[in-house]
């Protein structure tokens, strides 16, 4: 490309990042020297916003940064630039939107971070089953048995309720029982959310001191809490649907 400076090419070859236009070391979205939009890099969302991989995020500051970048990447500003720059600004824009949507929500942020930290729930569950098959040992279920038991019972009641509704019958006792269970599960959900918040603080401290072992421990605890929390969230949603219909 004609616009690509020699320095930029040289830096690209050595794996370093430089502005395509002026060759100066570049920031994630714009060159810090000449201000030109840069081709999107395959960086994680934290890096995209120049944030450390921490779970407590200053959301108002993130929002300001988001608006600032959105403005700078607005298509109107690229009407008279090269085709390439127009494309890059669009790509940067969509990356910006994804990154912001993921990081502003604390749960999505946590799930995203866990993926970055190598957590793959499905993959891990599958390989645990394979290990159990080979060794004959029992696979540890991610959802504790007593919670599963409760979930199963509640689902049975929900099914009964739906059947009754279909037949045009109403069972106030059953509805009342479901309401009680729902309240209990909502409480559990709140407790788990609080527990998760404690792990965010722990994580942020661990990341500062860079302790590999402790980092894994906190990571796995967060996975465990999130799993149980998701289960309860789905359940409460189903109860609400059934009671509302």
């Amino acid at each position, binding site marked *: 490309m004609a616009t690509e400076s020699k320095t930029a090419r040289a830096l690209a070859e050595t794996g370093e990042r430089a502005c395509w236009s002026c060759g100066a070391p570049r920031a994630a979205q714009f060159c810090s020297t000449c201000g030109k939009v840069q081709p999107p890099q395959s960086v994680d969302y934290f890096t995209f916003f120049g944030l450390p991989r921490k779970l407590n995020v200053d959301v108002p500051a993130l929002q300001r940064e988001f608006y600032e970048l959105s403005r700078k990447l607005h298509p109107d500003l690229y009407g008279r630039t090269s085709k390439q720059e127009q494309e890059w600004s669009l790509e940067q824009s969509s990356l910006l939107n994804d990154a912001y949507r993921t990081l502003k929500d604390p749960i999505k942020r946590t799930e995203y971070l866990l993926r970055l930290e190598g957590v793959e729930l499905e993959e891990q569950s*599958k390989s645990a*089953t394979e290990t*159990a098959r080979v060794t004959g040992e029992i696979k540890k279920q991610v959802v504790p048995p007593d919670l599963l038991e409760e979930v199963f019972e509640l689902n049975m009641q929900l099914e009964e309720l739906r059947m009754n509704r279909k037949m045009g019958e109403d069972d106030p006792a059953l509805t009342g029982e479901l309401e009680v269970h729902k309240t209990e599960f909502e409480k559990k959900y709140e407790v788990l959310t609080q527990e998760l918040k404690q792990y965010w603080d722990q994580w942020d401290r661990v990341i500062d001191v860079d302790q590999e072992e402790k980092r894994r421990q906190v990571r796995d605890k967060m996975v465990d809490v999130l799993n*149980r929390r998701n289960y309860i969230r789905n359940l409460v949603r189903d109860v609400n649907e059934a009671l509302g219909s």
Partner: protein
Amino acid sequence: MSYSDKVLDHYSHPRNVGSMDKGSTDVGTGLVGAPECGDVMKLQIKVNPETSVIEDAKFKTFGCGSAIASSSLATEWVKGKTVDEALQIKNTDIVKELSLPPVKIHCSVLAEDAIRSAIHDWKKKRETPKPEIVEARS
């Protein structure tokens, strides 16, 4: 995404839905769940104590069509097998039989877990001596 014909068949005509007496020594119960989708699956087997052949199997699953089909198929497959033969069933066999898409592989994993868990429960019960035997020994 559309379900395969076999999934649809099991989904609309699930085999062996129901439950057995959890307290019976010949019955093994497996209760497993997948937090990704909130599915919960219960699979029970009735085992002949002499031959270790699984004589009956029942299931009840709350979840998507693939989860229901996987557990329905699992009950069909374990019936008539010995416990050791049933332990050879792989989730990939279920995937193949039902043509499950990659996003539904966890349903087959859940079904295999349910079989294992039910067999484990049955074995555990068998190893625990019955109260009257304990009495006879003392």
